[in-house]
């Protein structure tokens, strides 16, 4: 049997490689990791219309075949011999036509390594705008490799590329020599290569006007003006940067953009989140009405349906966040944001590239941790993952809202908004302090020390391609559901079990109560004598120093499934039977609650503030731990995160409660 041929796509960052991959696969591909690593690549089949029976792999962007990080090393090794797909039969290497003098290096190294290569010249429209073009036939003759030009936007030239791929695949196989990699590493080699590329580029770049080309060829002179033009960055980009990267105002614009994005994550998503919430709570109540008052009905309504709701409630925020970030990235601004914030972040051991993941952390830590993959320095990447759980994710918002509503005097509602901003400010400041401290103890905690650098191309500004951005948004959201969904779901079921058993059919006094009130009273009765309550009483000695009792302890345990579950657990425990307005009746119940063993009021100003601080710090999210484990490759970092953040949460809360009490605020 003949094995399916393997075509691998290689190219520098911003060289149109992914666009080409999307065209060739017809966007039908899956993203997988190299075995035993966190480095991703995409693989798929050629779109049916091209009639090529071959597998096609995309690979992460490469500047050269000389690796600069463990991730790049793996990518390059896999290029020579892919762990699951073997040696590629053909390599397509992309090069931006306006960046030939830089992008030809990779193509040159691939040809010299002995691969069968097709050089695909991309973004010809940008070069044409400068009234220039590439003489691809001449280039083919010089580098002795097939060269073709495509336009990713109009898909012009794709048919020709497909024709070349077909004919190349019928040629005899070539086997690359990995030993060649050693010479690519020498300074002299690099300088000499660039000199060769320089002379090639001077020959193949021609004016669009063909008469002039002919004249030039006949006279065999190199037009010096031509060189000048290819060496000039995009005019419009320079103009925009004069404003957006202005030395002083640039940073100010950056802060405004981030502020707008940040608030839109909350304000745009809020109505959608309400919608999801309403949908799943009404679905749960319909199903329990239809199935009656029995254990499986409760399992379906409170375990499965509410569990699904807990997963999907964050989807609007994640969608909006990735949509906005995707649009910003596609315009070219995000790289500039990373540049503007690099200095302050480098002070605490992070990198300009840490800032997007950190921002995502305010929506949800899971996609945020996944997006740290763009940070090539391992130490900086691990440190970024380390502090992401400190960003106040959206799951904490309902908890803050409840506790702040409790603290805010009803005649001064504006204070609530002020308190909430203060909580976010504190969480940002604390994460900076933590990153600083962890960075100081780097050798013991992160255990990676690599000289840090920031080298980033600032791409030309362009209008975002909505289709591509939407697709990426969809992919990211899917990743969130796939990775976090099952864990949140499983935990919801475990917590349902702990709060439902063993007293599954409680006996209560039903006189004068309607169906709904009976169900709610039964719920709270069930919880009072549940395994979760036992667990709660067990941890009461731990809660008392914070001025809290077993009931808050149980709510904190249930919050491990998803932090916002804290609020619904409190409602259950404090026997809230008024479904119309849970918050106001919960607030009344909180005001009247007393610690059973001592008779002191449970929720005072000091204990509520202490509890807010507990939530700012504590890593109460099993999904985050699971993703952190997966992305860092061991349990080391997630266990450190859990222990450090949760114990710090406890001690900070303890200190705050007792300090407030000592100065007379009870």
């Amino acid at each position, binding site marked *: 049997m003949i094995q399916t041929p393997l075509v691998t796509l290689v190219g520098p960052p911003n060289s149109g490689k992914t666009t080409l991959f999307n065209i060739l696969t017809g966007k039908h591909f899956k993203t997988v990791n190299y075995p035993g690593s966190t480095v991703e690549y995409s693989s798929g089949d050629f779109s049916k219309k091209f009639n090529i029976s071959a597998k096609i792999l995309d690979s992460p962007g490469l500047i050269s075949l000389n690796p600069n990080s463990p991730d790049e090393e793996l990518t390059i090794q896999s290029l020579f011999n892919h762990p699951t797909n073997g040696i590629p039969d053909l390599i397509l290497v992309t090069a931006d036509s306006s*960046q030939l003098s*830089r992008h030809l290096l990779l193509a040159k190294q691939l040809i010299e390594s002995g691969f069968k290569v097709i050089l695909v010249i991309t973004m010809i429209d940008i070069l044409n705008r400068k009234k220039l073009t590439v003489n691809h036939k001449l280039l083919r003759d010089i580098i002795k490799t097939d060269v073709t030009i495509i336009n990713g936007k109009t898909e012009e030239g794709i048919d020709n590329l497909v024709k070349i791929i077909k004919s190349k695949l019928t040629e005899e196989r070539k086997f690359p020599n990995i030993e060649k990699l050693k010479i690519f*590493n020498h300074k002299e080699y690099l300088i000499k290569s660039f000199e060769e590329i320089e002379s090639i580029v001077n020959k193949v770049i021609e004016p669009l006007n063909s008469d002039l080309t002919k004249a030039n060829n006949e006279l065999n002179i190199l037009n010096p003006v031509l060189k000048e033009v290819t060496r000039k960055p995009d005019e419009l980009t320079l103009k925009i*940067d004069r404003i957006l990267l*202005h030395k002083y105002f640039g940073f100010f614009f950056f802060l405004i953009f981030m502020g707008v994005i940040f608030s839109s994550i909350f304000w745009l998503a809020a109505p959608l989140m309400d919608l999801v919430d309403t949908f799943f709570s009404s679905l749960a109540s319909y199903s329990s009405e239809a199935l009656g008052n029995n254990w499986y009905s409760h399992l379906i309504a409170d375990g499965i349906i509410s569990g699904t709701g807990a997963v999907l409630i964050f989807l609007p925020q994640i969608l909006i966040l990735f949509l906005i970030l995707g649009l910003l990235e596609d315009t070219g601004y995000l790289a500039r944001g990373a540049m503007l914030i690099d200095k302050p972040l480098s002070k605490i051991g992070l990198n300009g590239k840490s800032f997007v993941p950190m921002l995502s952390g305010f929506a949800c830590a899971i996609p945020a941790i996944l997006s740290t993959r763009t940070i090539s320095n391992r130490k900086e990447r691990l440190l970024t993952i380390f502090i992401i759980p400190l960003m106040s994710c959206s799951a904490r918002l309902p908890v803050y809202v409840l506790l702040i509503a409790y603290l805010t005097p009803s005649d001064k509602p504006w204070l609530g908004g002020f308190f909430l901003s203060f909580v976010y400010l504190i969480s940002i400041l604390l994460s900076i302090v933590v990153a600083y401290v962890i960075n100081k103890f780097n050798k013991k905690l992160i255990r990676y020390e690599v000289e840090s650098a920031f*080298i980033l*191309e600032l791409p030309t500004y362009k209008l975002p391609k909505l289709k591509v951005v939407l697709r990426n948004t969809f992919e990211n959201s899917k990743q969130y559901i796939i990775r976090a969904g099952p864990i949140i779901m499983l935990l919801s079921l475990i917590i349902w079990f702990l709060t439902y058993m063993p007293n599954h059919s409680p006996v209560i006094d039903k006189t004068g109560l309607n169906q709904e009130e009976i169900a709610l009273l039964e719920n709270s009765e069930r919880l009072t004598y549940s395994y979760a309550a036992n667990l709660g009483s067990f941890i009461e000695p731990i809660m008392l120093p914070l001025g809290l009792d077993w009931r808050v302890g149980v709510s904190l345990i249930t919050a491990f499934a998803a932090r916002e579950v804290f609020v619904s657990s409190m409602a259950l425990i404090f026997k809230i039977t008024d479904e119309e307005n849970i918050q106001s009746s919960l607030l009344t119940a909180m005001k009247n609650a007393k610690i059973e063993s001592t008779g002191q009021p449970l929720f005072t100003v000091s204990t509520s503030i202490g509890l807010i601080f507990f939530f700012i710090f504590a890593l109460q999210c099993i999904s985050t731990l699971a993703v952190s484990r997966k992305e860092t490759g061991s349990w080391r970092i997630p266990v450190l995160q859990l222990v450090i953040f949760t114990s710090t949460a406890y001690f900070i809360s303890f200190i705050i409660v007792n300090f407030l009490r000592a100065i007379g605020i009870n």
Partner: protein
Amino acid sequence: MKNASELNFGEKAVIKDINSSNPYYKRLLEIGFTPGEEIELINTSIFNDPMTFSLRGTLIAIRKKQAESILIS
């Protein structure tokens, strides 16, 4: 010898050499900072670091520390 971090805004210079003691000197070469190439300081962040250079028709931002290893004439 002067290095790229000492350039003023809009000032152009030709690269003489890349200091091999910088651990990232190969990456700087690979991205196109090669001897003989002309660079121009386009802008810097408010903290004067990183710095953006125009090079081979594109814009590349690098930290001051890396710019110091680019020797110019």
